[in-house]
């Protein structure tokens, strides 16, 4: 049996490193356990030369300041990956030939580090834990700091030989591999990108085989899938369909195919088959999570202690995805263990800022407590959760009559009222008609759920204090608190019905409907209503959009798009006839299902509503009949329309809010759109005109569609992607850390990682003297030659020319009218899409 350490720190990421450094500095008996053969695996795996950002810039790094150029604790500053790991290696007296040694002076910590020490299980109680390592050793410690990040373990092949050294779960740089026979297992984006990287550069001379268990690439982005299949057709690589690994042996893999076993020679096998999140491992220690949700985090006390006494969780695993947060927590947790007292959290100054605009000059604790006790959906939260939530939020006080948001403003944030009340202007034509929302309740939930613009103007009815939760914070709250989830759902259903069916109704009127409403998630393409069926429910699109069609297969006619915030299914209920058309989800959507009888009862009680419903039904029917009658006269045009609609849905139009469409009957290929784009944005074009798909004459270039619920936003550690005032999805170059998550999450490939290019000479001096590269994006070589190599790569994409008077410059700069930016609900109409463009 080994010694009993005061603390065992598991994981040497920024969180674990800083905890270990602080323990060493305090001469607390400790051990740092790291799974891999190097420190900080997540940072180690960043791209070579990656510029690591130290955000948020106004958050101070603990263990204060520099003395004689040496930081009085674990160092971390913005810089390259190599520099940071070099410093940390030096802190730990680790020599690693893969990392350049840092030449400067750093504080020498006597950290007791053990590499290649994967923890597989933890047993025992506070005061005496036994930590089992993969190599069989056991380590004993009084307390445990768990800082293992969120990466988890890559899945292994399920066949003999799965631990063969030829197998690697990741590929750092395709150019490191030359003349190799490579097998890629896994047909998600990561696998496909690796395969393409290795195969499509003939200079590398690799022979690449991609194994596909099935026949499609449903898990990958459409662009990746088509790139891969065309690379196969063009002979760059080989895809083996309906093939799975059977055994890995030296220099070859045995695979199972439809026609029996085959042998493929290989020198390297890349397995890109996902990874196991570390949740199971953590739960096995007896640690509870806040909810079943996949995005949930462990339940933590303000001092980061889990529900298992003596085990602390910090870093990304605790829900803090930035390095600075991680490092501060490492410090805090050790200070707590050493002194028994919680350190004043490092985010205190940030929170002071959050509350600084509220009246009365009250303390952070005062406001935290007030919000928690007054706002219903915050009821179940711990102090730590409250702090975290408020960090991402905006707290504001409004005077009576002041506007909080306006109808049609973009916004997907959620508001909660801590003090006072607000008035909702439900009738756009008469602002005096309002509906109150009182203290403790929420508003703005429709924007949160659907991503659509605000449905009404809301003003403060008295002196009011609200909090605006960013969409990310709100989703985190909903994900971690079932009560909040329930409350938001219920309120949003009620309000959506009220908003849709008109102002004469009260929550009481619709109570029977609300009570029986269910929210259903509909995956893209799934049918909600089938033509000819005689079910009798009414649906409201809560999120996403629906496509309405008639007929089957080849003869299917597209009739229209139903965006979020609208209802459908009324015809069958009112007429009592079978369904007239098929309605299915254009993108992943959510609908509220309401029982038809309930709706009929309501119509019977409210003649005004009945009138409106009949009106809407009539309009829809007329538009459908119009298209169908055209079908008889001009079938080709209608088929073309349906085909185009289908194509546009494939290209993401079902979730777009503002997309660039080029009419190739007008496009002369001058690329003035790209040049204008570059010249409006630091010299980088965020649009690739020529690439992208074309159907009939309509071309969808590679350019941001400004999705209702942007995929790029889902996993941005510094929360740098936001929807701006003009409705654009914008990446903040200041706070972007260049991690590339948004790029890999975007299904349309519109995000690039680029350094800001150098400034070009002016247009005049180019026209007169030919200096500089001229209008548009400068060639790569010119940019490289004229720029500082230290500039960090950050995410760039279309911002809809936000803040630029006149609107998107790609459209303004098109000489022929080929380029337009449209919203799908306006463009996906028969008249627009069958327009005759020529003069």
């Amino acid at each position, binding site marked *: 049996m080994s010694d009993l350490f005061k603390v065992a720190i598991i994981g040497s990421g920024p969180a674990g490193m800083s905890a270990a450094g602080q323990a060493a500095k305090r001469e607390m008996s400790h051990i740092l356990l790291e799974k891999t053969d190097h420190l900080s695996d997540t940072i180690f795996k960043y791209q070579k030369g990656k510029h690591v950002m130290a955000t948020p810039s106004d958050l101070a790094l603990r263990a204060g300041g520099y003395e004689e150029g040496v930081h009085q604790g674990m160092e971390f500053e913005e810089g390259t990956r190599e520099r940071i790991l070099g410093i940390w290696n030096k802190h730990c007296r680790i020599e690693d030939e893969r990392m350049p040694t840092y030449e400067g002076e750093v504080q020498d910590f006597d950290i007791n580090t053990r590499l290649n020490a994967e923890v597989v299980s933890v047993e025992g109680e506070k005061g005496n834990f036994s930590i089992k390592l993969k190599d069989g050793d056991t380590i004993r410690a009084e307390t445990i700091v768990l800082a293992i990040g969120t990466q988890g373990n890559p899945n292994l092949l399920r066949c003999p030989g799965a631990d063969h050294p030829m197998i690697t779960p990741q590929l750092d740089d395709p150019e490191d591999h030359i003349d190799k026979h490579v097998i890629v297992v896994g047909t998600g984006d990561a696998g496909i990108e690796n395969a393409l990287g290795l195969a499509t550069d003939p200079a590398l001379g690799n022979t690449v085989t991609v194994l596909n268990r099935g026949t499609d690439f449903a898990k990958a982005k459409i662009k990746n899938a088509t790139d891969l299949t065309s690379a196969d057709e063009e002979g760059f690589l080989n895809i083996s369909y309906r093939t799975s690994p059977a055994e890995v042996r030296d220099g070859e893999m045995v695979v199972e195919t439809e026609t029996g076993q085959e042998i493929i020679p290989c020198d390297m096998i890349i397995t890109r088959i996902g990874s196991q999140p570390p949740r199971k491992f953590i739960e096995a220690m007896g640690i509870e999570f806040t909810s079943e949700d996949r995005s949930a985090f462990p339940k933590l006390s303000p001092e980061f202690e889990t529900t298992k006494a003596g085990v602390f969780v910090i870093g990304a695993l605790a829900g803090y995805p930035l390095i600075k947060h991680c490092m501060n927590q490492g410090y805090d947790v050790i200070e707590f263990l050493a002194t028994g007292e919680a350190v004043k959290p490092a985010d205190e100054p940030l929170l002071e800022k959050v509350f600084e605009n509220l009246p009365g000059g009250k303390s952070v604790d005062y406001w935290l407590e007030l919000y928690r006790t007054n706002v219903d959906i915050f009821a179940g939260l711990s102090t730590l959760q409250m702090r975290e939530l408020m960090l991402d939020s905006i707290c504001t006080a409004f005077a009576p009559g002041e506007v909080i948001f306006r109808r049609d*403003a973009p916004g997907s944030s959620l508001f909660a009222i801590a003090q006072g009340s607000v008035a909702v202007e439900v009738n756009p034509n008469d602002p005096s008609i309002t509906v109150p929302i009182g203290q403790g309740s929420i508003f703005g939930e429709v924007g949160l759920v659907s991503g659509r613009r605000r449905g009404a103007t809301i003003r403060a009815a008295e002196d009011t204090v609200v909090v605006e939760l960013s969409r990310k914070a709100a989703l985190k709250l909903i994900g971690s608190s079932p009560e909040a989830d329930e409350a938001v759902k219920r309120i949003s259903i009620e309000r959506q019905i009220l908003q849709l069916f008109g102002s004469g109704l009260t929550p009481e009127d619709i109570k029977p409907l609300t009570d029986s409403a269910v929210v259903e998630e509909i995956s893209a393409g799934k049918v909600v209503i089938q033509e000819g069926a005689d079910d009798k429910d009414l649906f409201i699109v809560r999120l996403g959009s629906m496509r309405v069609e008639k007929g089957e297969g080849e003869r299917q006619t597209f009739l229209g798009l139903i965006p979020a915030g609208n209802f459908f299914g009324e015809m069958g209920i009112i007429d009592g006839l079978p369904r007239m058309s098929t309605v299915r989800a254009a993108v992943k959507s959510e609908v509220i299902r309401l029982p038809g009888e309930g709706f009929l009862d309501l119509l019977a009680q409210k003649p005004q509503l009945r009138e409106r419903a009949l009106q809407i039904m009539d309009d829809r029917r007329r538009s459908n009949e119009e298209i169908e009658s055209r079908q008889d006269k001009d079938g080709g045009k209608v088929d073309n329309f349906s085909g185009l609609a289908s194509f546009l849905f494939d290209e993401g139009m079902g979730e777009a809010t503002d997309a660039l469409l080029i009419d190739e*009957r007008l*496009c002369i290929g001058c690329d003035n759109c790209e040049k204008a784009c570059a010249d409006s944005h630091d010299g980088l074009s965020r649009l690739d005109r020529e690439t992208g798909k074309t159907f009939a004459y309509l071309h969808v270039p590679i350019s941001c569609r400004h999705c209702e619920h942007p995929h790029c936003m889902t996993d941005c550690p510094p929360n740098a992607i936001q929807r701006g005032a003009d409705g654009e999805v914008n990446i903040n170059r200041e706070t972007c850390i260049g991690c590339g998550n948004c790029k890999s999450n975007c299904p349309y490939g519109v995000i690039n990682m680029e350094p800001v290019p150098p400034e070009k000479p002016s247009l005049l001096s180019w026209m007169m003297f030919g200096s500089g590269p001229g209008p548009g994006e400068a060639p790569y070589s010119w940019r490289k030659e004229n720029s500082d190599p230290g500039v960090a790569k950050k995410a760039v994409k279309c911002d809809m020319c936000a803040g630029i008077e006149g609107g998107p410059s790609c459209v*303004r700069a098109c000489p022929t009218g080929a380029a*337009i930016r449209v919203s799908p609900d306006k463009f996906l109409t028969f008249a627009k899409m069958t327009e005759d*463009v020529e003069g």
Partner: protein
Amino acid sequence: MATAADNRFREDEKRRDADHISFLKHRGFRWLWMALLLCAFSIIGYALIDQEPRPNGGSWYGYTLGTVGLLLIVWLSMLGIRKRRISEGAWSLKAWTSAHVYLGLALIVVGTLHTGFQIGWNVHTLAYVLMLIVIISGIYGVYAYAALPKELSANRGDKTGGDMLDTIADIDRKLESAAQPLGRAGSDLVIGVLEQDVFYAGAFSRLTGSYPGCATKRALAGIPATGSDAEIRVHELLTARAEQLAQIRRHLRIKAMLEIWLFIHIPATIALLAALLAHVISVFYYW
């Protein structure tokens, strides 16, 4: 934060309701009507106003037409700058092009009437002729813009120019290994193919699509489609290469035809501006 209404929402919503309409049809042919009006006024004026001693650039009406023409030409020339200076504001290059085309055509009437049909061997007529050259090249440009984009699109499908070159590079890689077993003559033909740059031919080939000395064509003729396995394979690859080359050449030809006229239009514009300067100076100093 509460978003105030001081954003572009209204303009954006209007824009998002846009339609694909060509520059010729812009706003229901607004600039066509403007140009026709200009022509009509010029002609009516010319016919009704009694010009002494005879219609000519020197009469007061001639001056008027000349000034209008000069301003128009200067404004038309500014298109080159408008196109490249992406400043803020509610301008649209499509509207500019639309106005450019129709007002440019109206210059035929305005300019001709300005001459009073007095043509001679002098700097004045030089300016007039240059103007006509610019205009005629412009007319071809409009024809090209209206007719060629469809062809360009149909030819390229989903492929970009870069994709096409990538395909050639890939075929070449395969050709290189497939040609190993060929005899001397065959290998030489394939080497000739590999060594010939895709862009080996000049502007004339690009425009006409005729590529004499195409090594791929020569090799196709020289290597039988029905021979040894290697020959069959090489022939297949060469066929694929020839097809890909044909697509690239069509692409280049259409793009060249979309641009070639600008090589007359722009230099002639510059010459025109110079000639106009000479014309104006000579009129004021030496008449």
